[in-house]
């Protein structure tokens, strides 16, 4: 059973007097444990698609199922709960909370979203900290670590609540090539270690070919699917 399944997905919005079709009749299915990238130029609909899969936005029409749940009609409160339970996010600008240490940033979803017991929480945070190679950096604040390290922390935060799906919007845009490749490698390793599905959007040529499934978008339409596991 596909983890993410989209059928004739549309997203349009009004921009002044013009109707913009950001996503225009997209259909695909993504199996659990995949490493998928949405590629395409700016304005092709990658981020809109990721937002809909991440329950941050609702489709105008079509159906979208994530982890067996039709997410196209969730209320904002239901969406927040669903995201907290099933989806992790990695952002282009890392988006770590500056007043929290690395450890606390990773702990945040377990504490503020899922309410894990303290001991279980500690063990889980230490596990993912070690998994992303940041075990000795837990006490530092985000402003005390490098961009690559920040993105590692962001990966750890996305994984810590054992999300089935991690969505990353341009996760390497602010990183140099070597660091960008390390982050992609880390995502692959996490996929292998935890069985998590990673979907990232990019138009960064240095990492475009690193995903196992590449879904190419142009003007809101899915124009090609390469690799195994993705069906347009």
């Amino acid at each position, binding site marked *: 059973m596909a983890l993410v399944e989209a059928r004739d997905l549309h997203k349009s919005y009004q921009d002044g007097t013009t109707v913009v079709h950001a996503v225009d009749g997209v259909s695909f299915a993504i199996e659990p444990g995949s490493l998928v990238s949405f590629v395409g130029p700016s304005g092709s609909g990658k981020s809109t698609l990721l937002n809909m899969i991440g329950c941050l936005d609702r489709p105008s029409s079509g159906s979208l199922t994530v982890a067996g749940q039709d997410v196209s009609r969730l209320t904002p*409160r239901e969406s*927040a709960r669903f995201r*907290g339970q099933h989806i992790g996010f990695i952002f282009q600008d890392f*988006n770590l909370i500056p*007043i929290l240490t690395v450890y606390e940033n990773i702990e945040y979803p377990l504490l*503020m979203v*899922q309410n894990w017991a303290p001991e279980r929480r500690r063990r889980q945070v230490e596990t993912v900290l070690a998994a992303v190679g940041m075990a000795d950096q837990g006490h530092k604040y985000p402003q005390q670590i490098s961009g690559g390290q920040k993105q590692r922390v962001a990966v750890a935060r996305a994984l810590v609540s054992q999300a089935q799906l991690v969505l990353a919007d341009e996760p390497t845009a602010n990183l140099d090539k070597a660091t960008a490749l390390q982050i992609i490698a880390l995502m692959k390793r996490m996929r292998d270690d935890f069985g998590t599905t990673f979907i990232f959007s990019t138009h960064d040529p240095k990492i475009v070919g690193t995903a196992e499934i590449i879904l190419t978008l142009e003007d809101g339409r899915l124009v090609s699917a390469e690799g195994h596991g993705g069906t347009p």
Partner: protein
Amino acid sequence: MKKILTIAFRNLRRYRRRTLLTASLVMLGVLSVLLFTSVTGSFKQMMIGQITDAMLGHIQIHQKGFLAAIDTLPLNRNLKDTQVDKVRAVLDNSDAVAAYSTRLKFGAMFSTFAETTNIRLNGVDPDRELQTVPLLGDRISGRDKPGLLAKGEILVPKLLATGMKVGVGDTVVLVATNKDGSVNGQNFVIGGIVEALSGPGGRDGYIHIEDARSLLRIETDEVSEVAVRLSDIGLLKNTTATLAKELATLRGKEDKPLFEIHSWQELTPFFNIVKMIDVMTFFIKIMLVAIVLVSIMNVMVMAVYERINEIGTIAAIGTGPGKIMALFLSEGLLLGIIGAALGIVVFLAAVAVLNVVPISFDFGQQKGLLLEPAISFAEIVSISLIVVAISVLGSLQPAWKAATMDPITALRHV
């Protein structure tokens, strides 16, 4: 909840200067209200103490209609001796009554042989009077004998003594007309000078009640008023009501009430000043509320605006609107608590200083009164709770805005 408070505290620490400024504003507001309340409260209590303990007593009982005609001090409105006995019986039975004094009030001509003027007089039993209004002794100056007053002596109001150029030891003549129209005069020696006090009766003289009866040729125990001192002024309302109820059972020939009973609040215009002070305190509290509300709201609107991207992030990773709201409300709550706590600390320091170097002031004829600011624990708690509640209220709109923010818009915000 602990984690939410920790995050809120760290956010306040992140914007240290702004937090300090806002907490200082709240602190100033709390300090102003506490100082105003304590100083005016002290003034109020001191003046109430002066008026009740040096002149009026806490409660007064008269024959029905006496108070309406008090300007003329009507002798035909006196309580008859049988009525006085009934009042005594009621007062003796009350646990709340600490002491009472019967007074014979009347007007007379005061003559120094060279000059003559009018004087309002209280005929009193000196011992009972001192038990009922213990601060009366402090108003007497120039007296070198023990006790308040002896037979044959008069305590003369200061303004009258100054105007008539008389002093302690001088002999004067009092001439009075009784209710039958008979005029009588007697010599008195000035035994002391009475400092004036604001309000009715504040410029009255005093003679012994037996001298008053002799001057007025009254052969019974009739009196004009009974002044009552309570063991605790906090019992005023209940005791006044209880005494009024008991005295109401004593009726006249036509089944009309014989007595009227008044608390000090109904007897002195100072009570209007007390009420005015209370109204001013209320408005000062409203100003405090406004200061706190505007300061907190302003700082919390700024906090939300500056952290839009952060709000988007925590919303995206699944933080529910309730928790986002709680985060911002907690910041307002902590700001209120910090401001109130600072205000209380500075207030206590200010009170300590004011108690070492007290403020001296004059009120009417009373000179050199000392203010000793004091405030009840309950009042401090109530003001602090108001501040904290308003701080949370001031954070409500910004917190709601944060909680209902669209995550995508928030994440796009630079």
